């Protein structure tokens, strides 16, 4: 079986559930989901998800691959782990959502590029991977300017007061970005991880 996706070209794919069970982190336990709704009911931002985890899992079973991978549920999860703690079948809901978000990125879904949370996640990862630390200014700037130069300046100006307040209370610093001692080693580790990931999912 193609480890990346059984049939990447199809919007609606009856093998999608099996593929998720076998390839997505925590997917094997998703097979035990009994649709009780504890996850979606536990979610602190459940009202802001288009589907919520329970319905998303049912959609996976129904083979609605495009709808699942374009869902904002993957991106709006805040990793509070309420659902994971309460799930009566011990399904690691958070892991599944995050790994599905990875799949959406790999397969180039629009939601994975354009949604606010996807943009922010990308900016966050950029800083973490480059410096081994997240720098508040750089993450914020990267996120704002992902919408374009004009929009980036506009958003930056709008939040100037908050930024100054943060600097005053030493929640944000000026000067060189924070970084780990040996970024070279970090980059080597991440390169190796990326290589292993690519091998697992088929180079793309």
């Amino acid at each position, binding site marked *: 079986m193609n480890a990346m996706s059984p049939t990447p070209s199809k919007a609606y794919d009856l093998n999608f559930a099996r593929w998720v069970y076998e390839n997505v982190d925590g997917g094997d336990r998703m097979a035990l989901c009994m649709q009780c709704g*504890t996850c979606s009911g536990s979610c602190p931002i459940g009202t802001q998800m288009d589907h919520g985890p329970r319905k998303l899992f049912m959609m996976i079973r129904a083979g609605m691959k495009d709808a699942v991978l374009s869902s904002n549920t993957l991106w709006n999860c805040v990793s509070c782990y309420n659902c994971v703690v309460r799930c009566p079948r011990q399904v690691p809901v958070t892991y599944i959502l995050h790994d599905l978000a990875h799949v959406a990125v790999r397969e180039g879904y629009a939601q994975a590029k354009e949604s606010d949370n996807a943009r922010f996640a990308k900016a966050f990862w950029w800083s973490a991977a480059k410096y081994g630390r997240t720098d508040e200014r750089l993450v914020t700037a990267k996120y704002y300017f992902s919408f374009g130069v004009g929009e980036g300046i506009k958003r930056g100006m709008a939040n100037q007061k908050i930024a100054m307040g943060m600097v005053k209370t030493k929640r944000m610093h000026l000067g060189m970005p924070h970084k780990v001692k040996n970024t070279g080693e970090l980059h080597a580790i991440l390169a190796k991880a990326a290589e292993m990931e690519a091998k697992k999912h088929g180079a793309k």
Partner: protein
Amino acid sequence: MSETTSRSRTIMVVGGGIAGITAAVEAAEAGHDVVLIEKSPSLGGRVAQMNRYFPKLCHPTCGLEINFQRIKKSKRISVFTFSEVSAVKGGPGGYTVTVKTSPRHVKANCTACGDCAKVATSEVSNAFNYGMDSVKSAYLPHVMAFPMRYVVDPSVVGTPEGEAIKAACPVGAVDLEQKDESFDLEVGAVVWATGWRPYPAANLTAYRWTDIPDVITNVEMERLASVDGPTKGKIVRPSNGEAPKRVALIQCAGSRDLNHLAYCSRICCLASMKHAAYVREQLADATVDVYYIDLRAHDKLESFLNRLKRDPQVNFVKSKPARIEKSEAGGPVVCGENTLTREVYAEPYDLVVLATGMQASLAAEGQPSFAADFDDYGFVFAEGDSIAAGVASGPLDVSMSVQSATAAACRAIRAVTA
């Protein structure tokens, strides 16, 4: 099989609930000597604590009364209350069972006149009502107690109150000198009828049974609805004593949950239908919402479920509530996702009843190694030499427990006569 010379034909039944009582009377009426061991002051177990049985909503006192009569009439049954098994040695046909008894402080000549309770001044938590109220420290376990004998709580022994209780007894039945005792019995077979306990609601932290007074369990609901319960049969909100207008029944509270009881407790769905019926019977204006994953009306009991489904004031919501929150007024707010409409709800209620599941008593007490083989969930694995009756073998309702107990009696008889 051991040598036949030392074989005993006596059958021991551990646990005096409906299953133990049934196994004991069936074996005795078939001509065998039976020793019935009960941990609490009275026989009857969980059934005595029920208000009604489903589906016909008849009173358990009726069924118990018949069985108590059968025990009284039989010369072959010895009943030991306040007793527990502490060790079992030997094998089929020749067991030596060590029984530990704790003191009742009241002798067999008690006439249940109640004079002791009149002079008692202190009160103790009422275990029969699951601690929802208290009783005098000299008390009758409940109105249908068998044996019909008072109990003097150990807390008054050595106090002036204890002496007053002793002096008040017109027949001199109060004995404050009684101590814990232990003795051995030779029996040919042991039937485990140790039953169940309600799964501790305090473990279900998201449902806040411990800090919201109007969140109660299904067994507490039984006591609320019983005429001999803490409210004399009135279904009220524990917080303020008023009749509830909106009631929520939450299914699978602890059952079908790998973090609690992994199995379906089988009876809770029907028990909750019974609770819906109690509410509708007493409170004409009240509405009941039943929160469920799926409704499991086993056997022939679907008609009872359908009866409640026809009631416009009983609504069914397909959802396992995620949590219960406390409103500003201190009442429960049930939160979750309606899985049919995908709506995330937060509904305030006057009273919430958690359908807590059945946990095997022996498992809850740490599965004594001498007892029997246990399955993964702590129920007795009734195969080979291991004999179990009623809920000790798995979640059952009353009628199924009785069937299971009769089967256990047959197996015990075969074991001692083989």
